[in-house]
């Protein structure tokens, strides 16, 4: 009998290591023949630790399981959840990028292959670089790191550039609050990312890749390093990728706790060993990137989606979605939520359906007051905007952004003035310091919001002006988009800014 106990860090944070140890100990005491497999998470975090028992080809799920439940689990008397695929939150998804996550041992390359892995890379090996780039263009894949730039067009630029060395850099800095898709796939299906980077390398003629992985993710760092080691030993990486005669190798690099290093040019400076200051564009990183060489910089999910595009065909992928938002998006539902986790679905689902139906509303059972979509630089959406379809242009039209697709839910106890203040404070803490409107403006923003909180209504106009200055005078989206959460809080929740409040303690 096989028993799956996730090693994903969210599962660990909820006690899965202790559950795995208890299962091993209890099985041994009973003399049972049990193999414990540490898989990734299925993404239903409210059910973690979610344990699955595989017997006679069928997998039955239990969760949340505590060490005290283990005797009953092995007796067969613990009440279960049935097959994971039939749990409504899971059944409603379209899992393309995350198809294998939670299904297999993340470091078992044979299991990876048995579930469709490497098929995409094998297909790409038989294609020219230009054909690979065309396939990505046809899929409609857009960057999942935030800006939504068409991935195929970026690859074309690097493909066309002449240079003796080119690079693939994976942006695994995932600093946005409310997001964990990058972490989840790196911990749950790391070979997908490696395969995607190898395909990118073949496409543009790059032989070296780097994953810039934030230091806040020690578990992901460990799994990725191990996966690269295995990939090298098994010929997936190295001088002769899967016997193609073409080289591609990669290295995991660890960030050092700076949010701004998720911005691609700051990231490149950091990777080169410099301060993570944002660079002016042009030159584009595609032409002058890492060490001045043509470089593809893509988010983890962008790259990890490439294998399934090549496995199933660009058209299959492009058939999902809405308008210019093609394919699926792993939406991360977080904060004060009843059913939080990762929900991969075709673009287009209305925000309200996600929040109320899929996620079941708030954990506290109180009314939803606000939903912040797209990380700390995303707008606060009130329930009156819940019919907005989850897609790039549609959110843009509502003064929002989907960014890396984090959805953070707040109940009616949230104080939106304090959330606006936090947005400014975060910008002040994380600013790279290059532009005055960002570096100084954010500090002024905190002060101005404090004045409003103290009852100075006139300061509201100042805050609006300050937001305008930050929008217009900032080089990157940290200073330029911080006004989104601030202004959306001010506009959608005027009551929180109107009443006289005690100054923040």
């Amino acid at each position, binding site marked *: 009998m096989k028993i799956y106990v996730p090693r994903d*860090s*969210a599962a660990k944070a909820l006690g899965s290591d202790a559950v795995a140890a208890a299962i091993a100990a209890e099985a041994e005491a009973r003399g049972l023949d049990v193999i414990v497999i540490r898989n990734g998470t299925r993404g239903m*975090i409210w059910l973690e630790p979610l344990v699955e028992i595989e017997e006679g080809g069928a997998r039955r799920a239990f969760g949340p399981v505590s060490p005290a439940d283990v005797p009953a689990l092995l007796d067969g008397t613990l009440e279960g959840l049935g097959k994971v695929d039939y749990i409504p939150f899971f059944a409603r998804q379209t899992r393309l990028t995350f198809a294998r996550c939670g299904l297999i041992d993340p470091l078992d390359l044979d299991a990876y292959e048995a579930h469709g892995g490497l098929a995409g890379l094998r297909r790409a090996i038989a294609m020219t670089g230009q054909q690979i780039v065309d396939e990505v263009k046809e899929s409609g894949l857009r960057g999942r790191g935030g800006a939504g730039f068409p991935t195929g067009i970026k690859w074309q630029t690097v493909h066309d550039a002449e240079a003796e060395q080119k690079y693939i850099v994976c942006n695994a800095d995932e600093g946005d609050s409310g997001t964990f898709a990058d972490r989840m796939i790196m911990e749950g299906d790391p070979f997908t990312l490696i395969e995607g980077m190898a395909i990118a390398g073949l496409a543009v003629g790059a032989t070296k890749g780097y994953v810039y992985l934030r230091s*806040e993710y020690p578990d992901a760092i460990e799994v990725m390093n191990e996966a690269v080691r295995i990939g090298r030993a098994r010929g997936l990486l190295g001088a002769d990728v899967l016997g193609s005669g073409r080289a591609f190798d990669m290295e995991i690099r660890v960030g050092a706790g700076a949010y701004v290093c998720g911005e691609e040019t700051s990231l490149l400076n950091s990777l080169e*060993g410099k301060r993570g200051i944002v660079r002016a564009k042009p030159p584009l990183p595609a032409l002058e990137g890492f060490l001045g060489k043509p470089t593809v910089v893509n988010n983890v999910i962008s790259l990890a989606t490439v294998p399934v595009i090549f496995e199933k065909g660009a058209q299959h992928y492009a058939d999902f979605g809405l308008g210019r938002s093609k394919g699926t998006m792993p939406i991360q539902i*977080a904060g004060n939520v009843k059913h939080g986790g990762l929900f991969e679905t075709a673009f287009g689902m209305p925000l309200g359906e996600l929040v109320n139906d899929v996620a079941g509303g708030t954990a506290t059972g109180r009314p939803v007051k606000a939903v912040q979509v797209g990380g700390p630089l995303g707008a606060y959406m009130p329930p009156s905007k819940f019919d907005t379809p989850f897609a790039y242009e549609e959110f843009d039209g509502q003064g929002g952004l989907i960014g890396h697709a984090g959805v953070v839910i707040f109940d009616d106890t949230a104080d939106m003035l304090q*959330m606006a203040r936090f947005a400014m404070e975060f910008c002040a803490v*994380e600013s790279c310091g290059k532009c005055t409107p960002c570096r100084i403006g954010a500090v002024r923003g905190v002060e101005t919001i404090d004045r409003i909180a103290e009852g100075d209504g006139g300061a509201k106009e100042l805050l609006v002006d300050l937001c305008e200055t930050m929008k217009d005078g900032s080089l990157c989206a940290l200073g330029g988009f911080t006004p989104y959460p601030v202004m959306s809080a001010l506009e959608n929740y005027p009551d929180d800014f109107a009443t006289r409040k005690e100054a923040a303690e």
Partner: protein
Amino acid sequence: MSDPTLPETMAEIFARHRGQEGPMLPILHSVMEAFGHIPEGVVPLIAEELNLGRAEVHGVISFYHDFRKEPAGHHLLKICRAEACQAVGANALTERVLSKLGIGWGETTPDGRITVEPVYCLGLCACGPAAMVGNRVIGRADEAKIEEALA
């Protein structure tokens, strides 16, 4: 008071990272691992190894939150301050933890046992409030869970 083993340790670290492209951050992470902080004495050595000015090396070290100039307490407790954790009471939790320890953000208890630092998201946003002690992650953190991890 410079550590007499420092030059030897650094030589070992440099040897490990030679041949890497952009070795600065990997070297600094290795220094953190070896010493628990970035001792002032490594700056001239790194500057020489990488053929940079000392000011430049200082500049890099000071830019990143991870590279501390002073050793942390025996336990480094990080509590997430970001939005998703705030939505489930991270601020109140932080207040209770800090007031119980009698310290503020970034400070170490007088007995040198615990340092508390803010962190902006640990990717545990669907099971917040989130915290971390060393590399051990804590979800739906409360005082009891944090105390247990610090034991």
